């Protein structure tokens, strides 16, 4: 990686941006979300945060133009130069110009706006080009980048963190005890006795424990769970999830947040998602679910919301009649609200706050109560 000569960088961590005009190639909201996604790429690995202005002078002014457009670098028609940006500073500095003689697209059929925007934002934040062909800051546009799997290379992360450092409290075990529920900017502590999880799922034999913007990954071969940003594997997924579960027979993990859900296979988010949760058969009164687990033997998926649960038949792909039922009636000893559920070794593990209830479905009773983070060798 490299920074601009003189190493210009922003002297503040909260920056503003403004989308000054739009390309006719895409709907406005597609441009908005491409830019937001590109900002998030850098937000995740630095202390930087961004907010949008709709008028006046922002730090990063984003515009589309063709040929000569008022600076010293006129564009060159379709091809070659796609966009350019200026290093941090006042006025023109920090700004991004896209060549509107390119065909801007949301996918790879033309020039992908998200990918180019993420690169140009690297310049707006002070990164120069990288000679690492795997890096986002490599100067040539790589149309074969797997968009769903996009992740910053270590070279990019090293470069931007050489300017701004890592996200706050970047060590996994923060030096100072965090509050029981870390706020957005803190990193969750694995062995915090009060720790809880947002969602838990298996994935091809591994266990994923989601929390805030991160997840712990527990595999068979590595006793020490790995710790990652969700966006490092699935950039288009939200954070602060509600629920997650794997349907083994479909080699797919379903991720829920609010009234939407995504399908992921490995680290690829499947096309056609997110979908609305009501397409699964929930009543419109349900705004979100708290937890879910799929019983691979019975091919039934259980959805938990507040003190009730639903059962979904994976064969007929429909919600079963006679639901919702009360959790307390069929899972005695499990206290709502349920944060996450895991099926393993013939038991169901219900996670609620810092407690975990091991439930034996045959005996229909709770057999153990453990700490939620016992799976992380705490």
């Amino acid at each position: 990686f490299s920074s601009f000569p003189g190493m210009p960088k922003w002297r503040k961590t909260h920056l503003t941006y403004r989308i000054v005009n739009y390309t006719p190639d895409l709907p406005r909201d597609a441009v908005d979300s491409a830019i937001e996604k590109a900002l998030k790429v850098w937000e995740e690995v630095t202390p930087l945060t961004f907010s949008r202005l709709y008028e006046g002078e922002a730090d990063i002014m984003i515009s589309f133009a063709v040929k000569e457009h008022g600076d010293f670098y006129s564009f060159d028609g379709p091809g070659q130069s796609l966009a350019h940006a200026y290093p941090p500073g006042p006025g023109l500095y920090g700004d991004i110009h896209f060549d509107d003689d390119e065909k801007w697209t949301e996918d790879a059929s033309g020039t992908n706006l998200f990918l180019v925007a993420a690169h140009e934002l690297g310049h707006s934040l002070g990164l120069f080009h990288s000679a690492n062909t795997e890096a986002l800051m490599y100067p040539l546009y790589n149309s074969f980048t797997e968009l769903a799997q996009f992740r910053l290379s270590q070279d990019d992360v090293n470069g931007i963190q050489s300017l701004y450092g890592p996200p706050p409290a970047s060590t996994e075990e923060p030096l100072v005890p965090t509050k029981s529920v870390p706020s957005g900017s803190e990193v969750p502590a694995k062995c915090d006795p009060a720790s809880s999880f947002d969602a838990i799922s298996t994935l091809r034999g591994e266990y994923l424990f989601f929390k805030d913007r991160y997840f712990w990954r527990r595999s068979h071969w590595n006793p020490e769970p790995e710790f990652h940003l969700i966006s490092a594997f699935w950039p288009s997924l939200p954070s602060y999830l509600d629920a997650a579960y794997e349907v083994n027979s479909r080699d797919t993990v379903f991720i829920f947040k609010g009234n939407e859900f995504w399908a992921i296979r490995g680290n690829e988010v499947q096309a056609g998602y997110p979908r609305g949760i009501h397409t699964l058969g929930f009543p419109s009164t349900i705004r979100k679910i708290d937890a879910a687990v799929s019983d691979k033997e019975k091919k039934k998926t259980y959805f938990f919301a507040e003190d009730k649960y639903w059962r979904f038949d994976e064969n007929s792909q429909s919600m079963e009649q006679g639901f919702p039922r009360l959790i307390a009636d069929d899972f005695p000893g499990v206290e709502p609200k349920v944060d996450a559920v895991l099926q393993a070794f013939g038991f169901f593990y219900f996670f609620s706050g810092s407690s975990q209830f091991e439930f034996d479905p045959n005996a229909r009773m709770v057999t153990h109560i453990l700490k939620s983070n016992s799976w992380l060798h705490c």
Partner: protein
Amino acid sequence: AYPLSGAAKEEDSNRDLAQQYLEKYYNLEKDVKQFRRKDSNLIVKKIQGMQKFLGLEVTGKLDTDTLEVMRKPRCGVPDVGH
């Protein structure tokens, strides 16, 4: 003047492409003459610098791979600091 043969024309356009590319992204001074002298040491060095940065074989010549890369879409920010 003799009409340029196809090969000579192509060579000319390749040199033009390379000259613009090096001026735009590798800080080459805009000076037509020096580019005409193919063996100009400065040009060879600039071509080698570009090939090294972009991960190409460093030949100092406008070989096929180098010409192909120069035709690829890219960011408009130079690779060498002004």
